[in-house]
């Protein structure tokens, strides 16, 4: 197949994407002009698309999307189980709609269906995009960056340059770096904020938004979200709430629990902790004895448990961790101290699954998806393409449990025994999507920056 044919596949996609939400017929002349090809190539493609049913003639010189295009709505949002030998969905212990009837309704987040018309940010590709990253201090953050780079490689043709700066968790450094990125004449700013409450950062973002720069937050956003077009995240509330619910039910509503949060001041840590505390408050027999911050590091988890063990002199019944990043430190501290390891929560890190499964530690994990890096870049391209986009994008979070550890209201989406990757390094983040396999081969950087 020739080089022309290859680009024709891309042109077909561009033609199909050029129609509006109501499928308003478009003039052939306008389609060809937008496509920027010769008349012979353009008409050849359009004729082939009409013949195959992707487009249909509406009136003389007008075309609209045809029956084949309409068939594209048939799409699974997740991979169908049949044919997927790699991963089996967990089977519930109790099935039937009757069982669900008594379960509490899950919350509906109205923010997920609010949308923004990004047509005012529309400009022709290729784009210059800046990413002001809060830090790369832990494995999750590095995995999220790998995910972003993966998406960049996929969308290389649409990206002129991707500039990435690491603020090392320092708000004042991030403030300077934002200006450096703006000086590079970027079309869009991606940001993962170092501190949710930093007013200088918020003010600077507000000023840039007022000047017309589209800003998308990923993972961490400022408290004042007015400067953002959209925010890519996962439900921290869901992670905190479900993991705490599992812990409380696993302990039959009775016991002492220690909390290990991530980074003090980081919005995901705050939201997960608040959600967990709200759940524990519903169980009068659960006593939350202390809350420690760990910077989402193994050493932080290890030291925090060492400190509270020295004070309490006996291990708790459960350790609620908002991530396995510090959870591994906690588990290791109990093991090294010769204690029975109490029930833990927190996924993310491959090592957390390996440790808990190997030592038969009861655990519940909800991986915070590092694949949001790729999702953020995809959203950035959607915005610069002038599409209507969600104000808040949530990557789905799976509940991962070892077999036999489901509770009355917390059921597994996936078994830990199948989720763990024994062949991958301990610091692998399993939720980074296809970037995980790229990272397995080699750690890569930006393709264009």
């Amino acid at each position, binding site marked *: 197949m020739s080089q022309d044919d290859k680009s024709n596949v891309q042109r077909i996609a561009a033609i199909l994407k050029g129609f509006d*939400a109501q499928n308003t017929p478009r003039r052939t002349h306008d389609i060809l002009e937008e496509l920027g090809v010769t008349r012979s190539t353009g008409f050849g493609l359009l004729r082939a698309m009409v013949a195959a049913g992707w487009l249909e003639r509406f009136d003389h010189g007008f075309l609209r999307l045809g029956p*084949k295009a309409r068939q594209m709505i048939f799409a699974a*949002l997740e991979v169908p189980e049949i044919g997927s030998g790699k991963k089996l969905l967990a089977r519930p212990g109790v099935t039937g709609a009757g069982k669900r009837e008594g379960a509490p309704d899950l919350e509906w987040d109205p923010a997920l269906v609010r949308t923004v018309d990004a047509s005012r940010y529309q400009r022709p590709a290729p784009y210059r995009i800046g990413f002001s990253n809060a830090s790369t201090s832990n494995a999750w953050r590095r995995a999220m960056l790998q995910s972003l780079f993966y998406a960049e490689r996929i969308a290389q043709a649409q990206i002129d340059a991707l500039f990435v700066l690491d603020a090392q968790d320092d708000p004042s450094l991030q403030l300077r770096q934002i200006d450096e990125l703006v000086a590079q004449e970027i079309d869009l700013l991606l940001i993962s904020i170092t501190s949710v409450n930093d007013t200088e950062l918020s003010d600077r973002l507000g000023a840039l938004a007022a000047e017309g720069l589209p800003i998308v937050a990923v993972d961490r956003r400022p408290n004042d979200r007015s400067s953002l077009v959209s925010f890519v995240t996962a439900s921290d509330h869901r992670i905190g709430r479900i993991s705490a619910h599992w812990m409380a039910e696993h302990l039959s509503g009775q016991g002492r629990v220690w909390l290990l949060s991530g980074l003090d001041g980081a919005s995901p840590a705050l939201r997960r902790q608040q959600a967990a505390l709200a759940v524990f408050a519903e169980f009068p027999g659960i006593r939350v004895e202390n809350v420690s911050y760990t910077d989402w590091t193994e050493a932080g988890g290890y030291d925090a448990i060492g400190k509270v063990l020295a004070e309490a002199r006996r291990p708790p019944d459960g350790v609620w961790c908002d991530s396995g990043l510090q959870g591994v430190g906690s588990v290791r501290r109990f093991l090294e101290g010769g204690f029975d390891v109490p029930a833990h929560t927190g996924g993310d890190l491959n090592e957390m699954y390996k440790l808990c499964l190997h030592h038969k530690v009861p655990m519940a994990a909800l991986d915070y998806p590092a694949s949001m890096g790729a999702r953020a870049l995809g959203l950035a391209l959607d915005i610069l393409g002038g599409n209507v986009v969600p104000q808040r994008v949530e990557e789905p979070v799976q509940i991962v449990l070892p077999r036999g550890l489901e509770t009355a209201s917390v059921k597994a989406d996936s078994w830990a025994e199948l989720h763990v990757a024994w062949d991958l390094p301990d610091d692998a983040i399993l939720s980074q999507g296809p970037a995980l396999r790229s990272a397995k081969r080699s750690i890569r950087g930006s393709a264009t920056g």
Partner: protein
Amino acid sequence: MTQTAYARAVDVFEALVTSPGRQAHSSPAGLIRAADVPASSGYRHTATLEAEGMLRRDGQGNYLTGMSAVRVGLQGFGVGRLAPLVQPILLQLRQSTQLTSFLAIARDMELNMGPHSIGRETRGTRLQRTYGFETIPDLAIGQVTEVGLRWFEGQVARRTNVALIPVESSASCIALIGLVVNSTRGATDSQIRALDQAYRQIAETTVGD
């Protein structure tokens, strides 16, 4: 370039974008093989379509139909407005009911199945691209209706029960949110409530600027 070459490009496009619906493929090679596209150009086409949002990959690397493709499909029916809402609403609906949730388009006596999220309670029910209504449905915007859908497996007629709530209509079709329900028990009160909640979310959606 000959007419045949343009038609071939259209064929390649179709083969690759429709492949994820038939089977799970966790590598470009698998997708290209299934699509019966020459390997020499298949990798580049696959990457192109992923970049265009016509294909996407999930957390395990499996290929899925991309959200741009879903948007184009909905635009084809004149209900493109629903495109950014589909994923969060269907995921919430599936999570709250554990049933397969879907968006579908009714035209005359035919139901075109759209994006869907497989729930663990009904994952044994394989969805079809199109169904026929067993009887003329009484569809009213915002009202939940339980109906039987008919489809054919060879010469054998099969039935799938669903609960539907129409959310939007255009000149020629009606967009509906639905749940595949247990064929003997039907939809429970909480499932009907969840559908109603999904409808209200869509109805109250406004586009900001």
